[in-house]
């Protein structure tokens, strides 16, 4: 059961929960199941290129299509980050 830290701006979609435990064997599975459980989080993945993922504090390189190859252990902590930008 991996633990996902929900980024602040998206906690309105998880009833203000900071972290959510999700079962899954790979990073892509876990993210897919997270979005299934909280469909409002789909906006987080609107532009997959902008989504950065950290597992236990270490950034996972590559893009969403490559995350099938990232295995997870049951005690892994995943942080999701969408950048903030301005003009």
């Amino acid at each position, binding site marked *: 059961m991996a633990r996902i*830290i929900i*980024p*602040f*701006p*998206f*906690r*309105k979609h998880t*009833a*203000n929960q*900071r972290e959510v435990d999700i079962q899954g064997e790979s990073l892509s599975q876990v993210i897919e199941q997270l979005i299934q459980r909280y469909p409002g989080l789909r*906006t987080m993945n*609107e*532009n997959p*290129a*902008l989504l*950065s993922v*950290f597992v236990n504090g270490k*950034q996972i390189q590559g*893009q969403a299509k490559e995350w099938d190859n990232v295995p997870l252990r049951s005690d892994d902590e995943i*942080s999701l*980050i969408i*950048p*903030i*930008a*301005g*003009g």
Partner: protein
Amino acid sequence: MSDLGHAVRIDLPDHLWQEIIGHCRRKLAGDFLPGETPVRRAYGILAGDLEGEVMTVRLVLPVKKNARGVEPFKTYMDTVMAEHAVQSTTPMDRRGWITDPEELMACFRRIDEQGFTAFGTYHMHIVAWAGDPTRDTPTRLDTVLARNSNLVSFIISMVDREHPTMRAFYEGRPELEIPISITG
């Protein structure tokens, strides 16, 4: 309450307001910190307590890095700016800012550790535009970039460097202003 769109007022202690202005003035003076992207732009994260419909700012986190020139953010910003930024003599690749993921994660972690809520971002506007002498509201680009963010965009007008002002807009939408009260 996790939807900041319901807030009716933002209380900003004066010492934190001074911290924000200090950040803006330092960047304008070209006085950069080690590890800071050397650009005359000031931006950061504001966090604090949310009680009922009132946000109280407790923490100012200036952001040091600008990932504007780093892929995939460069392509994203180039695309959005080509469509929404107003004409300017400043080259496009020197306009706009976007946070570095690692730095933003560290900011969010610190906010969580202190038990605060991330309210939004601040950034400054420094040049008056024809028809917009104060520049204290979000540009169309600001609005596009803040879409669906559930964050408040704090816009600091540094057009008059001696008398800066700040206004706040939910998701950078000009019609969703939240009044700011500077408190003692």
